[in-house]
């Protein structure tokens, strides 16, 4: 599912989250930050999107999901050569940071994600994209 905000920054965000309320809140944060948001319900759906050739600037993963976890998906996506896309682990699990960072995530943010935390992350992605275009 794709969601688009008005005045898009053209930052393509993929949100990988199986719990409905978490998906709703976090996707709305991303839309408020003018991202184009695609939703996936688990790690396998995320991997399938990359296999289809879809491109994203940032991917936010929950940790524990059915079928395939966030860290498992990161391993597979990085193995496809997707080294530029920013991978962010998001979890309420106190031990999740190690699980994400050890498999190549760029960043870990504990749940609940706040707008004040997400804003600078998206801005960094925007800045990087502008620099890469120059």
């Amino acid at each position, binding site marked *: 599912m794709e969601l688009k905000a008005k005045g898009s920054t053209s930052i393509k965000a993929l949100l990988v989250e*199986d719990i409905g309320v978490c998906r709703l809140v*976090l996707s*709305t944060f991303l839309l408020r930050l003018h991202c184009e948001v695609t939703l996936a319900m688990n790690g396998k759906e995320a991997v399938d999107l990359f296999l289809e050739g879809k491109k994203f600037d940032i991917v936010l993963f*929950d940790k524990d999901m059915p079928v395939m976890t966030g860290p498992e998906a990161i391993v597979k996506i990085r193995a496809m050569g997707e080294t530029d896309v920013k991978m962010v682990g998001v*979890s*309420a699990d106190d031990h999740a940071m190690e699980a994400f960072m050890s498999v190549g995530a760029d960043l870990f943010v504990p749940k609940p994600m*706040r707008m004040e935390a997400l804003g600078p992350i998206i801005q960094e992605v925007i800045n990087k994209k502008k620099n890469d275009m120059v």
Partner: protein
Amino acid sequence: MDYSNLRRQAASLKKGLFDQGHLDEQFRQVEDLQDEASPNFVEEVVVVFFKDSGRLISNLEQALEKYPRDFNRWDAYMQQLKGSCSSIGASRMKNECMSFRDNCGQRSVEGCMGSLQKLKREHAILRQKLESYFQVTLEAPPCQSWCHDRWIISINLLTDVCMFTMQLLRQVGPAGAATRPAM
């Protein structure tokens, strides 16, 4: 209808939810996402939360029965519910989730069962309090339209008074000239 009373009632209900620890700062983050384009966003989030949390609690109860003493599995289910509670700021529920997980770590079946009962109680209390709150907010129109109209009326009245006063002063002239007797 006395909307100001209803609005006060809504504010009081909301304050109670925060003061009693049912909700924390994350709920305000959710409220900040509500705007004219999404006027019922908070209620929508709450509806989805109770749908998710009801399902997760049900899954956990089934797991407690089907997989006795499988603390890792029980913990995994509760981890999901904890994440869900965190997302909307359901603070007391989140604390009970953490208590349950602690009991899993201590491999205490009795402790887990006790935590689950407390969690279900908090779940029911939060649902009832939020339902009451939204019921009252539905009956009171949004302050944006009511207060906006009231302010517009006040500003217009003030403008009219200023215009009238200025016209009066032009007619009367400076205060000194008005009081000096004609020669």
